[in-house]
């Protein structure tokens, strides 16, 4: 019997006993343990207020928890490792307006690489590549605030791709998108060969993209299993205030297909 080669490299991401309480006393995370291996694409789902965004913000130190550990690629999150961890973890915010704050799209995309201290030639190269990757090459001189919601989301993704992160963390990447841009976003995410953690309410996206699904409820991970097992179980999903993906409800016009493995 042949066995898969043992991967001795550290996991891409490891969270250990992570707790987080906001200053107003709301306990958002209550002992989260999660390990994500290199190249995995994981969907993080759960009802509103379950702690998804809080969890994501822990991953590159936007929120810091006094209890628990965040380890990225073998490097534990601390004040001294913050810069390196932010280089490794690319965060795409839920609202693209938060992420686009420069006068032009090109300057926004260049913001990350410039802060990595890269030489100007490399910065320009990365800006071109990232814009090309998301299909916004012609938008480099446009004012970000005047883009459509779909274009803004793609531009926001480009700002992170230009940093060439090893882990891509996305908070509701398809929340405001029309069907065309949603499809573009899904195809794009599928084509990016890095570890991805996607917090989403779009269970069809989770079904299509993510072989593994984690369900969060009241700051705790209550389910962590394969998408085919979790997302096809209507009773289980209902228990966590979720529903079957439309594709599995038979509402979509396309035939049901297995999730990507």
């Amino acid at each position, binding site marked *: 019997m042949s066995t898969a080669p043992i991967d001795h490299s550290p996991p891409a991401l490891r969270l250990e006993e992570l707790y987080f309480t906001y200053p107003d006393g709301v306990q958002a995370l209550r002992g989260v343990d999660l390990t994500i291996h290199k190249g995995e694409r994981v969907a993080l789902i759960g009802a509103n207020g379950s702690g998804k965004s809080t969890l994501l913000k822990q991953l590159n130190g936007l929120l810091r928890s006094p209890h628990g550990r965040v380890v990225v690629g073998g490097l534990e999150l601390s004040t001294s490792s913050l810069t390196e961890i932010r280089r490794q973890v690319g965060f795409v*915010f839920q609202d693209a*307006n*938060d992420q686009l*704050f420069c006068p032009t799209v090109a300057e926004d995309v260049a*913001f990350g690489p410039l802060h990595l201290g890269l030489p100007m030639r490399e910065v320009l190269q990365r800006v071109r590549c990232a814009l090309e990757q998301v299909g916004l090459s012609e938008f480099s001189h446009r004012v970000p605030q005047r883009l459509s919601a779909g274009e803004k989301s793609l531009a926001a993704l480009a700002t992170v791709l230009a940093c060439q992160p090893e882990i891509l963390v996305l908070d509701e990447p398809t929340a405001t998108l029309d069907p065309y841009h949603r499809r573009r976003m899904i195809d794009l995410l599928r084509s990016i060969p890095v570890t991805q953690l996607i917090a989403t309410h779009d269970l069809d996206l989770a079904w299509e993209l993510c072989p593994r699904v984690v369900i969060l409820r009241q700051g705790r991970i209550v389910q962590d299993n394969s998408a085919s097992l979790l997302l096809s179980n209507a009773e289980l999903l209902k228990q966590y205030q979720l529903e079957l993906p439309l594709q599995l409800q038979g509402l979509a016009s396309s035939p049901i297909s297995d999730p990507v493995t």
Partner: protein
Amino acid sequence: MHEKPLTISFPPHSFLEYMEPRLKIVALLWWVILVVSVSTGDPHQLGYFGLSAGLLLLLNHRLLGKFLMRWLPSVLMILPLCIFLLFLQQGRTLVQFGPFTITEQGWTIALHLFSTALLCMAGVALCWASSSEADLLCALQGLGMPRPLVAVFGFMLRYLHVLRPELHRLSDARLARQIGHHTPGALRIPAQLIGALFLRSHQRAEHVAEAMAARGHDGQWRNLIHYHWHGRDLLALLLFFSITLIIRWI
């Protein structure tokens, strides 16, 4: 194939836009010092400075819209202060409104302060209208301004950007629910709007700061455009120095 450059954020329309931002800031400081040094009893000199500012604006007439957008709000802020000053000075009565008296001294001081402030703000507005904010921040940094101060300026500018769309959103939401004409309690609404605007824009500014931190912002401003001093910039600066000096000591 000719590749479109990424490094120009907007096509420059005027010679001021082509100028190196650091030189513009040096020129602005010079302008402010000269204008502020004009004595109260010399309104003609302020008039000449006003004329030269007008001429500069005329030469860069494409910036007029951007200039006015930045300059006019400062007029609105300075005016009430100057009106207040009109009534504070003692001296020969010029006009009397019941218990309120405008004296000659009050009129002179208020007018001087108003003109000086407007001229200084005109310089700031012209500098701001002809450069992107990122350029100005990098220029301040390049001139050796302490990093925390540059960061404060940077966040102030970001805050302005955040404030405008939030105001639009809030006004739209208000208008969408405002059926018919003003109601007796309508005056309360703008006050509530300002409170909500402050909270919303503060929240938004925090999100923007988070997004900047997530992409490695460490308090230092870096820009895609790298300016270099050219001979023409220095020539323009020397010309500016000479003209303003002549006006000042005329």
